């Protein structure tokens, strides 16, 4: 399966990242801007899914790239760049969610995205994105890294500094929770119109 952050990014990572990283380390701002453009989708998407707010995700993504700029010398190679960014973004997002009193998110249309699949169910997908907000910050990060960035449990464990077993446990429990909640919501959604119809049929 193709990587969620896009085939182009993967090619960019393997072919040009080292060269651009060296130029950016040397103070070439155009090279650093190129780095940002190549990785902004992955960083911003992770932020949006974690924080469920485009503005907060933009702030988070800017902070991440600012930190990257300050710590460019600590990035060993282009291949380390995406994992480093993913790790920093996920940890910053978790920290921000912990600081906020409420983990639940209210999903607006802005957080959604156009799905190109023919059999797409935008309502269910919106529900699923909303249900993510009911997961704990760590569980949410695991789900997003698994299903958005298509990482395997080992890479997720590395990004979130947790054991592989913990990742697998989070995945299993969160999927069960999401499936149950989505099913319940769908049932409620289908029952509500029926009740409305019955109410109009009842004699006055």
């Amino acid at each position, binding site marked *: 399966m193709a990587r*969620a*952050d*896009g085939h182009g990014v993967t090619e960019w990572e393997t072919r040009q990242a080292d060269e651009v990283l060296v130029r950016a380390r040397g103070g070439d*701002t155009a090279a*650093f*801007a190129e780095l*940002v*453009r190549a990785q*902004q*989708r*992955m960083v*911003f*998407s992770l932020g*949006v*899914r974690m924080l469920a707010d*485009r503005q907060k*995700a*933009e702030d988070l*993504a*800017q902070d991440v*790239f*600012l930190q990257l*700029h300050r710590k460019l010398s600590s990035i060993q190679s282009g291949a380390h760049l995406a994992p480093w960014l993913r790790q920093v973004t996920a940890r910053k997002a978790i920290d921000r969610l912990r600081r906020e009193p409420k983990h639940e998110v209210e999903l607006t249309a802005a*957080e959604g*995205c156009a*799905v190109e*699949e023919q059999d*797409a*169910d935008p309502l*269910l*997908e*919106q529900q*699923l*994105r909303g249900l993510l907000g009911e997961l704990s910050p760590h569980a949410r990060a695991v*789900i*997003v890294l698994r*299903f*958005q960035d*298509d990482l395997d449990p080992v890479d997720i464990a590395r990004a979130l500094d947790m054991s592989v077993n913990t990742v697998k446990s989070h995945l299993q429990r969160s*999927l069960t929770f*999401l*499936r149950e909640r*989505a099913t319940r919501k769908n049932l409620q959604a289908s029952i509500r119109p029926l009740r409305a119809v019955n109410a109009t049929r009842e004699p006055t």
Partner: protein
Amino acid sequence: MNPDPQDNFENRLRAALQPVEPSEGFADRVMTRIAADAVKRARMGASRWFVMALAASLVAAIVVGEQWQRRQEQAGIEARRQLLEALRVTREKLDLAYQVVNSEARSPSRDAGS
């Protein structure tokens, strides 16, 4: 063959979590923020140097002041020691003079008696 409902759900989740692009000009905003951060850090660096220089001056002033005070104290102790020494010498001289005067005062009466 029916599709696995678990796979179907995971595919739905994958579709729901498709990556999204930030708004137009994101990289430019990042670069602007980096430039502003560089200016801020330079200012902070300069003010840090100023604070450090001020702190170093204060420390130097305190050290010099303490040394001056210590020297003054030592000079006072030395002056006291010299004064005591002078008093001791004076007392010895006075004792000597007293003894001489006493002995001379006794001598004429002894002469007169003999």
